[in-house]
């Protein structure tokens, strides 16, 4: 299946791509369009674009939306959703100190990557690592 999002991926989109490959569509192919570009390519599921189904809702990030939309019940994924919420959006409550660091690191990954495709692939390592570490500690 094909998935489409805006260019210049960051903390939320790297997390989403990781989630898609791991839990939703292992054969996923990602397409990128410039921010604000319309129409979106046909036959591709859009994500993290304002107004689409898989996007920010009620102040939550797209990763949070996707965990719920695909009924992935895993407390570690919920925890990552909270972390990405705090990294990617303004929150009036902050309980995850790792968030600002994760935001910086994922921005840095995009900076040192030649394109978004590569950035998503590299981001995978970060989220595999985060997931693994979180399983070792209590929420």
């Amino acid at each position, binding site marked *: 299946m094909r998935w489409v999002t805006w260019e210049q991926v960051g903390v939320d989109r790297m997390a989403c791509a990781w989630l898609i490959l791991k839990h939703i569509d292992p054969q996923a192919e990602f397409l990128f369009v410039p921010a604000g570009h319309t129409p979106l390519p046909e036959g591709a599921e859009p994500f993290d674009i304002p107004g689409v189904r898989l996007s*920010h809702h*009620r102040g939550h990030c797209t990763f949070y939306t996707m965990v719920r939309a695909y009924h992935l019940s895993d407390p570690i994924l919920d925890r990552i959703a909270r972390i990405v919420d705090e990294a990617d959006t303004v929150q*009036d409550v902050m309980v995850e100190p790792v968030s600002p660091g994760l935001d910086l690191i994922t921005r840095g990954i995009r900076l040192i990557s030649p394109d978004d495709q590569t950035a998503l692939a590299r981001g995978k390592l970060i989220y595999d690592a985060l997931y693994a570490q979180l399983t070792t500690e209590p929420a």
Partner: protein
Amino acid sequence: MQQQETPSWVLLIYKIPREPTALRATVWRKLKRLGALLLHDAVWLLPATPWTREQMQWLAVEIFELGGEAYVWESRELLVGQEQALVQQFQARVDTVYQEILAELEQEDADLLALSRKYQHTRTQDYFHSVLGQQVRATLLAARGGREA
């Protein structure tokens, strides 16, 4: 958050149903958290950076979902000289907090952890890189018994 040569600004104008009050307050708190400046009780203003553009855009989406209306614009000033006054307002706000931290750091029993958090929080709103912020950082680092960064 780099400042461009000619700064531009992100503006948010919104209207939201009066009830429920909690939801209205959430939007308000987020704008305060971003350090946005409220002009004439109508327009919320932030210096435009990729991050502030994105945050204002998502906030607008949230306002739509709450049944409200929102417009987000990016603009540059036309009247020369007003920009500096706006920048000063942004700076004055963070500098006030930085001054408070410096004053508290002079106390014998200053709560260093709480003051560090206050500094970190303020820094996220320090869009124009106040010199006082660097001073707070150095003073905090010196206070914990370490060397100045």
